[in-house]
């Protein structure tokens, strides 16, 4: 069987990736398989769990629900692109660490990108609003208590 591929140019975490993929390849698969960025996880592949959340031009999206070709030319930010450098964590990552906001860590990249994306656009968000945002994603380990605490702490830190 011959399978046709198309060239796609992605900008991920500031780097350019020129890849040849089947048009049906999801953004999540392209990030994981073609860009070797395996921090974006797949928990359900039907858009509910949110483990695959990435930022597309700053907006949180489910990378399992969009094709990579749809991200042509857009700027994608994954969990690997949150920290400013290898020595420093992003305030959201730091807060999750300090407040034990993760256990198995499988959902964590999705929560980190979700929270980062939201707080960068809504630095004044309060707890009720942030709980609403956090209800986009599923975590099976933490019971969410420490995710809420970490998110509140990160919000405060980012407001400065």
């Amino acid at each position: 069987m011959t399978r046709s591929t198309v060239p796609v140019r992605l900008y991920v975490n500031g780097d350019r990736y020129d890849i040849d993929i089947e048009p049906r390849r999801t953004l999540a698969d392209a990030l994981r398989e073609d860009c070797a960025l395996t921090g974006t996880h797949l928990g359900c592949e039907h858009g509910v769990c949110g483990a695959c959340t990435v930022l597309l031009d700053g907006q949180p999206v489910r990378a399992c629900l969009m094709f990579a070709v749809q991200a042509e030319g857009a700027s994608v930010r994954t969990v690997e692109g949150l920290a400013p450098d290898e020595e420093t964590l992003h305030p959201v990552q730091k807060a999750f660490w300090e407040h034990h906001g993760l256990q198995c860590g499988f959902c964590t990249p999705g929560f980190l990108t979700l929270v980062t994306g939201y707080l960068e656009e809504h630095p004044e968000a309060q707890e009720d609003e942030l709980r609403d945002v956090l209800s986009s994603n599923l975590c099976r380990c933490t019971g969410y208590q420490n995710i809420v605490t970490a998110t509140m702490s990160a919000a405060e830190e980012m407001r400065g």
Partner: protein
Amino acid sequence: MNTAEPRSWTGRAMPRLEDPAILRGWGRYVADVAAGDDCLHVRFVRSSHAAGRIRSISAPAHVTLVTAADLAGLHPIRAVLDRPDYVTVATPILADDVVRFVGEPVAAVLAPSEAEAEDALDEVVVDIEPLPAVLSAEAASRRDAPLVHDTEFPGDPNTVVDGRIHTPGFDEAVASADRIVTVQVGSSRQSAMPLEARASHAAYDRATGRVTLHATLQMPHMTRTGIADCLGIPEDDLRVISPDVGGGFGAKMTLAREDIVVVHLSRTLRRNIAWIETREENFLGAWHSREQVYDIEGAFSAAGELLALRGDLVCDVGAYSCYPVTFGVEPLMAMAELPGCYRVREYSVRSRGILTNKCPIAPYRGVSRPVQVLAMERLMDVAAAELGLDPVQIRRTNLVGEFPHRTPSGLVLDDASHLETLQLAADMADLAEFRERQRAAREAGRYLGIGFSSFAERTGYGTPAFAARSVPMTLGREEIATVTPGAERVICTMDPSGGVTLRIGASPHGQGLRTTLSQVVSDALGIEPSSVRVIDSDTDTTPYGWGSFASRAMVIAGGATLIAARELAERLRVLAAHRLGGLPDDIDLVEGHARRRDTGEEIALRVLARDTYHNAQLIPDKGQPALEAVGVYDPAGTFANACHVAEVEVDPDTGEVRIERFLVAEDAGRLVNPAVVDGQIHGGIAQGIANALYEELIYDERGVLVTTSLMDYLPPTVAEIPPIRIAHLETISPASITGAKGVGEGGTIGAPAAIANAVSDALAPLGIGVFHLPATPHRLRTMIRQASRTKEAAS
């Protein structure tokens, strides 16, 4: 001389050593091992019939198809318990001839990518002649019921476990009772639903013929034994690695048929093979749990003392056993532990596991204890209401207060704090204030309720406890295949630079064991956790161990770690005394140094370590030029305990339950890392709330699972989980050498009963009690509507 007492690492909520890599997206889960690897991808063709005979399996020539016929020579999985009432059934690696549940793997396809494997899956045609299926334990155990397996059942049809206990004074105690209180409780099927579904990647090494299997597991060593047995190969031909694991909750301790196929294909094709399970497959085939119905009778005195307890416990175990713990796990745990934290002197119980044409059950956090505690706690509240007693008072009357306490099933409850946690919980709840609010709310047409749940959580049990499940019949037989989980081993090594490596048989999957064990080692050796490296979950580099399940890791692996670290510390003290003079007992290990307590003279551990390896002539016992100690721990078990309190409001129009408060008075012994302990409690309670109100696997009348996505099966989001307030007591029990008790399952065990009691309390004015979980809005609304109709008819 430095007199400052060094601060202990144990007891500190230090941030986890595991986290920085995970937070950066550098975690390494099985699918990450497969991503970018030049491997073949396997997908499984699954039965769409609950029961049937396979007529044919076919696919176009371009599809690489693997069926049971290609697996000739492989042995089926046999999970065996040595008891007269236990019926062993074999699990073929792929269904051969007969299918027994929807989702059962009947064939596999192979392709160069996941997408192409999925394409190939669509081209496979499986022709199955349907056969009559049995879809409930009740139907399956009826006379003349179709048999799920064509084998001999010594008792009722399809009954694979039938355990009984009857204490001699039971009948007399019942006769002396003032009141017999009966309840029937039940639970729907549930899924552990780790966010990472199952996955495996087998890499073939041409040079050695060995396969390295990366799989998402709680028991890598046992998995290797299981796969090697089924393939008929020496264990050494297989290396099993469980890298970062995206949640387990019990679901990843059971041997997967799919993993055996993956390893077999890798060996025979001499290729790397990957299998990444989809969420739908995970719901269909990756083990269910807790479909149970318990009929309970409590014989009470007028003062509320429980004189005798009778139970008829039925567990729907699905179509096959689970390896290694067997489908006896739910019914036998229920039989042994039903009395829980209550003083039950006389006990009569029958506990059955019954086959049905549904997905097999396997352990899920708490196993059958959430239903046991539901039974006992509903019994207590119903009895309190019938006898006109307060729910706290009836618990106080019956809780075990003196230790050790021997239960009628032969368990020994070690030092615990049932009465104290109940009191603490009642104080936190401020019952009088709540009753006031409840009264005011009722007048305003609102339904508020409060529910208590006291329980004991059996944790950290080794060989003696698992051996007690068996009634040995055939010891010494040639093909004995029984599996009795038990001891954990660790090897603690100080390298020449003074760094410590701890290799463990346990296999963490999110519990933070690398951090907590490092804390234990650090205290014993006077070093910092950052200089301890924990190596786990790799059969090539760790000692044989059972893994992480049944709230055992901190007790058993932690105990083994303490034993090894103390032995290493003793050796360092001997070496230091040789260098500094004085006796080993005069040496303290602090801040990376060995220090004479009397003179304050000290020597760095890294100097001692370096000399031990490189200048053996300087050390007293030259025969041991290494710094290494092995720790083995195999305890009988220790019981953690807690009391949960839920406050709820029920919307009578929608049947929605809103949890207003959730309070926990918990005693898990010594808290090695309080943040980790609270994290376990939070997560456990969220799953308990899910069990109580939301999650339910539903089969239709043909035995087809209809809840196969996260839009049908409803794990809670943050919106459904209230803030949880936790208070700790720390009873230090001699049954655990670290003083720590397990805490992994308590949240899930206690929360459902607290919520069922709270919802029942809220709806008491309507005469409604909740006995079956989950209490979904639909179920509650149906009961509320029925109650109002009955009320109308009566008026």
